């Protein structure tokens, strides 16, 4: 019988500590964190098998711990609040862009963990909004100076996957105009004034990702699995690329053969090669893994 390795909270946090380095802050997040400013980007994959309760719902305290681990690793500092201050300023008006898909939503523990740390930075609660549908007409989100993009990973009938890049689709009232060539140009969304330059963090929730779509609603619990993960980064393209690699690996393992996503999630690679929004080449993504490694699939 194999022994499960239990990681204590202290070990978990300790494992994330990376020596702080100095940086100048120019726009809320340091310039070196901007995906377009460099030829490589950091993405953090953090996994903790304690994150789900018996019913499969995420636990707030563990989510917060995982989020802290990811953000401190990204910011290369030990203290979570110091790390968050590299992304959010006290004067920011912060929109937390979630996903309300009823089968696999972002969930309130994730939303509240993000909100907690934004408030810890010094942003008053009245300057924090949490919303998915209707943000295109929401005055708060239109005036937001910073966005945090958080949603679960799932396969999608027309875009291949629904992940961070696609999560901005509710910033437009007519999403179908982005459907051409199976959503090839979703990255254009990120040029909208309400979005461009404002997304400080992308958080792809991988607690129970959906790796295959069936039926009209595209969901069956048969095709989700407990992965216990969060993928966090500044670059949405790199975050999504990492998520898709895990989904593909899961499909290979589950089906016993290479089953490509159909349609292919080409909007992610095109976000790099055509729209230059971020990095889709895994060779240029510095993946920082924290927490459990078993069945990591990447």
């Amino acid at each position, binding site marked *: 019988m194999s022994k499960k390795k239990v990681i204590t909270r202290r070990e978990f946090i300790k494992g994330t500590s990376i020596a702080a380095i100095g940086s100048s802050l120019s726009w809320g997040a340091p310039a070196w964190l901007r995906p377009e400013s460099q030829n490589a980007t950091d993405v953090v994959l953090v996994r903790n098998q304690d994150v789900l309760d018996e019913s499969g719902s995420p636990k707030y305290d563990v989510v917060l711990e995982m989020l802290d681990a990811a953000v401190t690793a990204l910011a290369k500092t030990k203290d979570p609040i110091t790390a968050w201050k590299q992304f959010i300023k006290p004067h920011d008006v912060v929109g937390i862009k979630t996903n309300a898909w009823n089968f696999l939503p972002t969930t309130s523990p994730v939303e509240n963990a993000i909100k907690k740390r934004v408030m810890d930075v010094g942003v008053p609660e009245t300057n924090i909004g949490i919303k998915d549908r209707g943000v295109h007409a929401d005055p708060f989100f239109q005036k937001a100076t910073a966005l945090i993009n958080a949603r679960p990973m799932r396969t*999608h009938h027309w875009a291949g996957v629904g992940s961070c890049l696609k999560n901005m689709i509710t910033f437009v009232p007519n999403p179908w105009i982005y459907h051409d*060539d199976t959503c090839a140009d979703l990255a254009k969304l990120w040029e909208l004034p309400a979005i461009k330059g404002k997304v400080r963090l992308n958080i792809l929730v991988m607690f129970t990702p959906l790796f295959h779509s069936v039926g009209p609603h595209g969901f*069956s619990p048969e095709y989700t699995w407990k992965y216990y993960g969060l993928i966090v980064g500044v670059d949405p393209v790199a975050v999504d690329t990492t998520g898709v690699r895990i989904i593909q690996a899961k499909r290979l393992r589950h089906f016993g053969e290479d089953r*490509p996503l159909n349609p*292919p999630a080409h909007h992610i690679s095109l976000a790099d090669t055509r729209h230059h929004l971020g990095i889709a080449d895994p060779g240029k993504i510095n993946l920082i893994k924290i927490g459990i490694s078993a069945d990591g699939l990447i």
Partner: protein
Amino acid sequence: MRQVATFFLLFSTVVTMTSRGNIELDRFLPQEIAGYRKIGPDVQHTPDDLYQYIDGGAELFISYGFRDMAGRQYARAEDPDDTITVDIFDMGHSFNAFGVFSQGCETIQTTIGQASQYAGGLLTLWKGRFYISIMGFPGTEQKKEVVFTLAQGIARSIPEEGAYPPVIALLPPQGLVPASIRYFHHHTWQNSHFFISSENILHIDNHTEAVLARYKEDDSTYLVMAILYPEITKARAAHRSFLEKYLPGAGGDIKKRDDGRWTGCRLQEKLLIVVFNAASPEKIDHVFANVGKVK
């Protein structure tokens, strides 16, 4: 359960359409079944607003000629979170109903409708020009029984079976994996089993009938695609396009790929046959020789 069966026996009417073309769910779904009671108003959607109901799936249905749909949700009084959702889609033609069913097919059961599939609380089936989905998560045995009873009632209410797309009958039967058959007329679905191209290199559109299937013989697997074009000129143009873009430099119509597998295509009047990932050129020739004749 006996009450449920009685309901459907008494209610063995056909699925009818209103003058607007919308499906009247009351004609073939009960208000209550085995403690599950209808909640909220029924939903109805057309191609213009389907995306509001099935986030992410609307384009799949629209690519198969979707006309309209109606949906009903049930919940148990003592546990409102315990729900069952029934959706009935009018796909306009049996070919399309079969096609959209085929896209999500992992196993085929033939006990309900013309074919059905149940896994983990989701039952899908097709009959005539209708595609039906019934979701009852989690898929407990008790809930599964209710889902199956609903499905059987709906299937009985659709009086006539529909024809299968004729192009399917042209596939060679030897080694065919039936559950892998994918029928379509939008090029997006050419990649269902294997990535071929993001582009429409085979000129697939609403006027073509395409089928893709997986084959397994001994330890060897390969894919066969058959595309029936409305005119020989269109078929020839697609053949040329595929040779130029997928098999450049082949010198013929069969080529060894970098991974050591073989791909080939052949035109037979209006029918284009493509074999992907075969172990040998002889296997491709064998497939070509066993494709059905277009009548």
